[in-house]
C-alpha cells in the first residue's frame, strides 16, 4: 500500500512538472513564439484530438463506476448537455446542469 502510494505520488508530481513545462516555455518565449505559427497550430490539433478521444473513451468505454450505467444513458446525458448548451446561447452551466439532471434522473429511474 505504502509502496503504491509513493508510486502514485511520483505520477502526480511528474504530471505537475510536465504541465508546468508548458507554462515555463510560454513565459520564457513570451515575446519570441508566434502562437499563430504552424508548429503551434499542430500542437493545438494534437491536444484537441486527444481530449476528444479521452471524453469519447470515458463515455463509450468507462473504467470506473460509470461501467454500471447503461451506454444509452451516458450518451443521452452528453447529448442533452450539448443540445441545451447550444439552445441556451452557449451557456456552459445551463448545458452541464441539464445534462446532469437528465443523467441522474435516468440512473434513478432505470
Amino acid at each position, binding site marked *: 500500500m505504502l509502496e503504491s502510494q509513493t508510486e*502514485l*505520488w511520483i*505520477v*502526480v*508530481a*511528474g*504530471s*505537475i512538472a*510536465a*504541465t*508546468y*513545462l*508548458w*507554462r515555463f*516555455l*510560454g*513565459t520564457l518565449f*513570451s515575446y519570441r*513564439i508566434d*502562437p499563430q505559427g504552424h508548429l*503551434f497550430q*499542430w*500542437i*493545438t*490539433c*494534437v*491536444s*484537441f*484530438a*486527444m*481530449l*476528444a*478521444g*479521452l*471524453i*469519447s*473513451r*470515458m*463515455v463509450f*468505454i468507462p*473504467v*470506473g*463506476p*460509470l461501467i*454500471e*450505467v447503461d451506454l444509452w444513458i451516458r450518451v443521452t446525458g*452528453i447529448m442533452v*448537455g*450539448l443540445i441545451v*448548451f447550444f439552445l441556451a446561447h452557449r451557456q*456552459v*452551466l445551463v*448545458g*452541464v446542469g441539464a*445534462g*446532469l439532471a437528465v*443523467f*441522474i434522473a435516468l*440512473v*434513478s429511474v432505470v
Partner: protein
Amino acid sequence: MIVLSSPATVYRRAAKDALGFPSVMLLASMTGFGSLAKESGLTLGMALSSTAGIWGLPGQVALAEMHAAGVSALFVILAVSLSNARFLPMAVSFIPLMRDGIKRFGWMFALVQLLSINSWAAGLRSFPEIEVHLRARYYVLFALICMSAGLLGTAVGYYSIGVMNRAASLGLIFLNPLFFAVLLAGSHARPAIIAMLIGIPLGPILHVLSPDWGLLATGLLGGTLAFLIHLRAQK
C-alpha cells in the same frame, strides 16, 4: 479607455469579476474532479496537489482516469502534459500584457502557475481598462480566488461521493466527461473542431488496441490529420 488607476479599485474589480461565474464554474467542475480522484484511488492530498499543481481540468481528469485504467506512469504523465499544452500559447499571448507591472521578470515564472482559461479570458477582457502597471494585481487576486474555489470544489467532491446516494454519486463522476464535452463544443477554431471530430471515434478504438499508447496515438494521428486537412483547406 483606462478607468481603473488605483490599486484599491483594481482589487475590487478583480474580486467582483472572480466571485461570479468563474468561481461557480470552478467549484462545480472541480467537484466532479474531486469525486473522480476519490474513485480513482488518489488521496485527498494528491487530489488537492493535482488541482493546484496541474491547474487545468483536462490534465487532471486524464491523470485520475488513466491511473484508474491502469496505464503506466510514463504514458499518464505524457498524456497529462499534452492535454495541457494550451498553456504555452496562453502564456505567450498573456504575459506581455501585464509584464510592466512586475519589477523583476523572474516573478513571472511563479505567477504563470496561476494562469487558467478563466484568468486568461478575464485578463484579456479587463486589461484595456486597467493601467498597465496595475494589471498584474488584477490577475493575481482574480486567479487566487479562482484557485481557492477550485480547491474547495475538489475537497467537496472528494468527500461528497461517499455520502450521496448512488445516482448522485454517479452524476458527480459523469460531470467530468459532460463538462468537457460542453466546454469543447464551444470551440470556434476550425482546426480544433476537425481534430475533435477525428478524435471521437479514434479514442475508443485505439484504447482497445493499446491502453498505454491509445490516447497519445489518438492525439498524434488525429491531430496531425486534422492539421493537414486544415492546411489543405486554407490553400
